[in-house]
């Protein structure tokens, strides 16, 4: 910035308290002009701004404020003719925001805890009532099958189920192999490597296949549901549907939940097979258990009920994932940030709830002795 364009103040020798301004008084030079405005004559009686060659609203604001502080009459602040139009549109504004209170101490922490407890409580109520609404609307489908959206459901089944097959199979295979390795390192000390077969089979059939599948779908599908429905909500598409006499529950929620209810058990079955295959692979290459022997051992020791226990949890998890994904999507409000927040919340809730339910189910099945 050259000196001749910088904002400048000259004192008038004849009239004390009168100043002449020149240079540019714009947003770009705002800091410099604040600097030169710091040492003004006291008292200030007149500001001659006609020497300014460039002026914008930031400059006008600064000058108006100086004039206000010195309690000048309106005509004591003079501008060039062609700047007058700009000046007349500018009002003086001041930062009158209340000072922010800092939240510190035990009380603030308690308040936050209380608020989040309250929010969690409301969340649970919302989820329960959404479950109720879905069941009612689902029952209506039985009475009025014409409401069922077959195309949408099949489309969702493809996206939720078929497209997830490679991922679920690969992850289960690897986890199955890892369990076999871990088990063998301990069982080898007792010369009981053959028990790896039971370990992998029981772990996968009862717990891991369904849990892994549910976690993968909670991350992959719940987030997709929330984002899809949320974006539609934000763009008023859901409202448009309602005005057209279409029920978003029929159109958006039920096809997704039905698709999950059908595909999650199927994916769980695939995960079981893949996990067992992982165990067989490790057995064949690391533990000298040939596949024929491994499978024969499985036939001897396994019962169908292990698999049924695992599969029985799949529809429950499907319902949880579908309900949370759709409900969070419907909670979205107009903003882009809201879509992000809801998506995060839906994945976190779905994964947590799946694991919690699985833990309770494990206890229950053990007590019942299945």
């Amino acid at each position, binding site marked *: 910035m050259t000196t001749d364009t910088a904002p400048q103040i000259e004192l008038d020798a004849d009239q004390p308290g009168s100043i002449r301004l020149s240079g540019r008084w714009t947003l770009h030079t705002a800091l410099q002009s604040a600097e030169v405005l710091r040492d003004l004559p006291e008292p200030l009686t007149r500001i001659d701004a006609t020497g300014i060659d460039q002026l914008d609203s930031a400059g006008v604001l600064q000058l108006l404020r100086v004039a206000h502080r010195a309690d000048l009459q309106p005509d004591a602040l003079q501008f060039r003719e062609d700047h007058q139009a700009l000046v007349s*549109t500018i009002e003086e504004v001041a930062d009158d925001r209340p000072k922010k209170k800092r939240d510190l101490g035990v009380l603030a922490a308690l308040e936050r805890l209380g608020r989040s407890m309250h929010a969690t409580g409301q969340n649970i109520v919302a989820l329960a009532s959404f479950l109720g609404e879905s069941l009612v609307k689902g029952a209506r489908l039985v009475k009025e099958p014409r409401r069922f959206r077959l195309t949408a459901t099949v489309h969702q089944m493809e996206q939720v189920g078929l497209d997830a097959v490679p991922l679920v199979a690969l992850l289960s295979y690897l986890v199955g192999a890892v369990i076999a390795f871990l088990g063998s390192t301990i069982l080898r000390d007792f010369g009981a490597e053959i028990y790896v077969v039971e370990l992998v089979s029981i772990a996968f059939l009862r717990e891991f296949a369904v849990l892994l599948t549910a976690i993968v779908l909670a991350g992959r599908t719940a987030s997709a549901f929330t984002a899809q429905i949320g974006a539609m909500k934000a763009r008023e598409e859901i409202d448009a549907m309602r005005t057209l006499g279409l029920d978003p529950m029929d159109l958006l929620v039920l096809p997704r939940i039905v698709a999950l209810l059908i595909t999650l058990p199927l994916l769980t079955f695939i995960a079981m097979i893949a996990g067992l295959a992982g165990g067989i692979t490790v057995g064949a290459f690391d533990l000298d258990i040939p596949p024929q022997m491994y499978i024969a051992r499985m036939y001897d020791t396994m019962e169908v009920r292990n698999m049924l226990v695992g599969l029985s949890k799949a529809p429950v998890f499907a319902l949880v994932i579908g309900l949370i994904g759709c409900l969070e999507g419907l909670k979205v409000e107009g903003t882009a940030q809201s879509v992000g927040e809801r998506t995060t919340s839906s994945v976190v809730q779905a994964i947590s709830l799946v694991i919690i339910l699985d833990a309770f189910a494990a206890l229950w099945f053990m007590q019942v002795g299945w």
Partner: protein
Amino acid sequence: MTVDELNAVPAPAGDERSGDEANLAIRVRGLVNRFGTQTVHEDLDLDVRRGEILGVVGGSGTGKSVLMRSILGLRTPDEGQIEVLGRDARGGDAESRLHIQRNTGVLFQDGALFSSLTVGENVQVPLKEHHRELPERWHYELALLKVKLAGLPADAINKLPSQLSGGMRKRAGLARALALDPPLLFLDEPTAGLDPIGAAAFDRLIKTLQEALGLTVFLITHDLDTLYAICDRVAVLADRKVVANAPLAEIEKLDHPWIQEYFHGPRARAARGEQTESA
């Protein structure tokens, strides 16, 4: 940059132009825009003079928005030359592009406000980005100034865009476009979706601001009232070109089928009648 400085920017050296050419805010030559096999612009020329309000009209699909996006650098045209404020907007270096960004304000059709920020924060975004050296209090005060300038009540500054009506969102968008006191303003259908009273008030606001801040305005519109009320010149987009760029009185007389239909239809007669009555 203010109007004075803008007007003082010399034409690029070695360029032999008449004084009139040097006084252009936007100069488009030989612009070609294609989408696949569909050609939207073919060899399009456009001049926007400094300090004028240029209304850009044309039927739907004639590429008004594409033209604006090309000038703003949001779309790379297939061919052609675009100069904004004397700088090359197409092949220019990062410095030229920054210069253009700092000196243009854009009001998109629905405001395009950042939905997770309040109106005040929206207006402060360009200030915070381009004038980090200023204290936070100044950012706020300048934002408040622009919000009031755009005709919004002061308490609108703390509201989220979703809490505003369509007309208020446009005003908030205008406040953000004006945040840096840009000499060049782009408005994409500023009065679309407003009620007639609101639209007329918005027209007056644009005119007042243009006169006070000495703006050059590139205004896309379908609104005949806006054309008659505030535009100095009108550019008509048809047949993939700017078929005319002149004051309204001259445009009306042109013998082009689309122009004839547009300016001599029942709505145009009504708009013109109103203007002559109020004049």
